């Protein structure tokens, strides 16, 4: 088992906060979520916290329920590359990772876009490569149906290889003739500070894992139970070996939503406060969306109709399927399942003290469950500040996290500490 000696952190910015109702919290800066100052404050807190990167997710459609925008939830993230560039403008070391789907773009223009972000951030750019499968998104880009999953990922792999060729070529010409793309041209730019922007991947399907093993330097995954997380990480290491890449070439970062207090009681109070803010309709909406099954006509107290949901969508995502497993295991009602999603969607949720959180993270790291986490603060900026001020020092004291940035690039941060990794005898 290959173990990272230290944790790596992404920080996932989400307007209004990751707890779906936290925008209603009096301390959440909800009125400011489209202002530069909001992102500036958050970016600078991340840098103070010595995180590897700010992570910006993407969505290509408004959040609707039965044809109408869901007014009870905060807005999606703003355009990720723009947010990343704005934060790069007010930070010096923090990586900036933008999610961007290959589905509705041309590789040449995306290569130019990320080259610009890498140049202007001084080598801190990252691209979380995803593909799009949502019907709502398809309706915003023409009326063609989505490509089938395997084809989508094949296209994505070729898309990335075209970008890599363009970044590597600098001012030289690239001539690519492939299954999906025929590209002839040059970016006409000197090489990026990182050579190529860092690449991340977030799809959990077999196609997603294969793509990650081939191109990625970090994976954002949804893992809530340690045993399966270890197996998942080992499966990625096996795929890396097939690609002749070392196991620590990819840092695996499960999502992690902390609700912290100086005592357990305080943390639980905070959790209860947030639960109270969840509108009853929102829980049902989240369950319906994540499980691809309309639950609106059922009582919120009814048990989750797991067999019907599985029958309706046999190829449910691994994260959604894991949530269904949990609903079955714990005998949850729709409202109870919805509350879990409200807190952290399909990601880990931790309620407790910074020391308890450090114990948890230490176990996950040292048992080989992950290489770090992608943090999902409940609201901004307060819960992020709390993590930076109260939780990071605990991790540093235990030697689990860096006390300074050693490198100046995102790739440098992701690789920091690798030289003292533990390998099997």
């Amino acid at each position: 088992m290959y173990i990272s000696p230290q944790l790596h952190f992404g920080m996932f910015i989400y307007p209004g906060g990751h707890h779906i109702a936290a925008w209603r919290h009096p301390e959440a800066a909800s009125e400011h979520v489209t202002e530069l100052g909001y992102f500036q404050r958050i970016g600078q807190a991340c840098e103070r916290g010595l995180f590897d990167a700010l992570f910006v997710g993407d969505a290509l459609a408004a959040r609707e329920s039965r044809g109408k925008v869901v007014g009870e939830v905060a807005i999606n993230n703003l355009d990720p590359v723009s947010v990343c560039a704005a934060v790069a403008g007010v930070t010096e070391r923090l990586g900036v990772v933008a999610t961007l789907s290959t589905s509705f773009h041309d590789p040449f223009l995306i290569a130019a876009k990320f080259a610009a972000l890498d140049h202007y951030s001084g080598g801190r750019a990252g691209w979380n490569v995803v593909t799009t499968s949502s019907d709502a998104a398809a309706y915003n880009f023409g009326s063609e149906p989505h490509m089938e999953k395997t084809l989508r990922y094949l296209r994505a792999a070729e898309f990335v290889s075209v970008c890599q060729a363009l970044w590597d070529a600098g001012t030289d010409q690239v001539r690519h003739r492939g299954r999906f793309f025929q590209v002839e041209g040059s970016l006409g730019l000197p090489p990026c500070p990182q050579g190529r922007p860092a690449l991340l991947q977030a799809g959990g399907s077999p196609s997603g894992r294969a793509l990650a093993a081939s191109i990625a330097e970090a994976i954002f995954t949804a893992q809530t139970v340690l045993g399966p997380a270890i197996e998942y990480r080992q499966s990625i290491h096996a795929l890396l070996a097939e690609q002749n890449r070392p196991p620590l070439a990819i840092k695996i970062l499960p999502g992690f939503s902390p609700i912290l207090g100086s005592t357990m009681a305080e943390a639980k109070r905070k959790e209860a406060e947030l639960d109270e803010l969840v509108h009853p309709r929102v829980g049902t909406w989240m369950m319906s969306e994540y499980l691809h099954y309309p639950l609106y006509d059922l009582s919120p107290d009814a048990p989750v109709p797991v067999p019907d949901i599985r029958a309706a969508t046999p190829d449910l995502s691994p994260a959604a399927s894991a949530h269904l497993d949990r609903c079955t295991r714990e005998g949850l009602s729709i409202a109870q399942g919805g509350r879990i999603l409200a807190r952290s969607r399909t990601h880990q949720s931790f309620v407790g003290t910074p020391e308890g959180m450090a114990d948890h993270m230490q176990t996950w790291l040292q048992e080989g469950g992950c290489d770090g986490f992608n943090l999902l603060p409940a609201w901004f900026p307060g819960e992020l500040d709390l993590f930076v001020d109260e939780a990071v020092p605990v991790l540093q004291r235990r030697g689990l996290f860096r006390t300074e940035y050693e490198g100046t690039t995102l790739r440098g941060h992701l690789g920091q500490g690798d030289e003292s990794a533990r390998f099997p005898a």
Partner: protein
Amino acid sequence: MIRTLTLHSAAVPLSLPACRDLVRAADAAGFDALFFVRGPGPVLDAVPLIAALASVPAGIGLGASVPIDYQEPFHLARAYAAIDRLTAGRSAIVLDGGDGLAAAIGRDVDLCTERRLECLTAARKLWDSWEDEAVLVDRPAGLFTDSARIHRVDHAGRYFTVRGPLNAPRPLQGWPVIVAPLALGQTALAADAVTVTTAADVASVAGRVGRVLLDVVVGDAEPALRPGCDGVNFVARSSGGLADWLASQERPVAHAGPVTLRQRLGLLRPVSQFAGA
């Protein structure tokens, strides 16, 4: 009189600190906007650049060229919905016809006025899909937005089908300022401001678009302006002498307090076409 400065990509440094200096110098010299456009040579995507420059304390407008032939309306609308707010309403899109990119894009695209105009029309519908009053942040009621004020756009045209709505609030300017060179023909008439290369061309667009600007090469003397011409767009194709020239341009700045680029250029702010729908 309006004064803007256009830098072709060969004139744009690849370092953010150097670009920040340019913004500060152009702002101090009283320019209304700084436009970063694609020229021969480096393929510079200046959209992330203007986002990175949003934090430079300055009132100057910031524009980036966008190859309109290769844009999806939703992507364009989304990027500028973000950038317009991040720049506090100082953003502009400079239309670029995408010349010379065909082999790099590598798929068949109708390079024509109809497609370009349709892309702009669809993007404007998306910017209008959220009425100005859509964002509530009503904590007691638990409503972040008023969904009755967010509209599907249901654009179904020859080249684009876009259902909408956008997933971002309305730009502070309503629509970002759109600038186009006269060389784009009919497409230019859909812009807020058109740049012309000779004084004689002013008459062909004056009165048909919001603002007309005459291109002048950096270093040349500022000409007297003909009727119908609202100002000058200085153009630098290379960086040689640019810093000195900017330093020589000190002018008093007339604006008190932050204004949007539309306000600086004397352009009206559009009302959402879906207001009251």
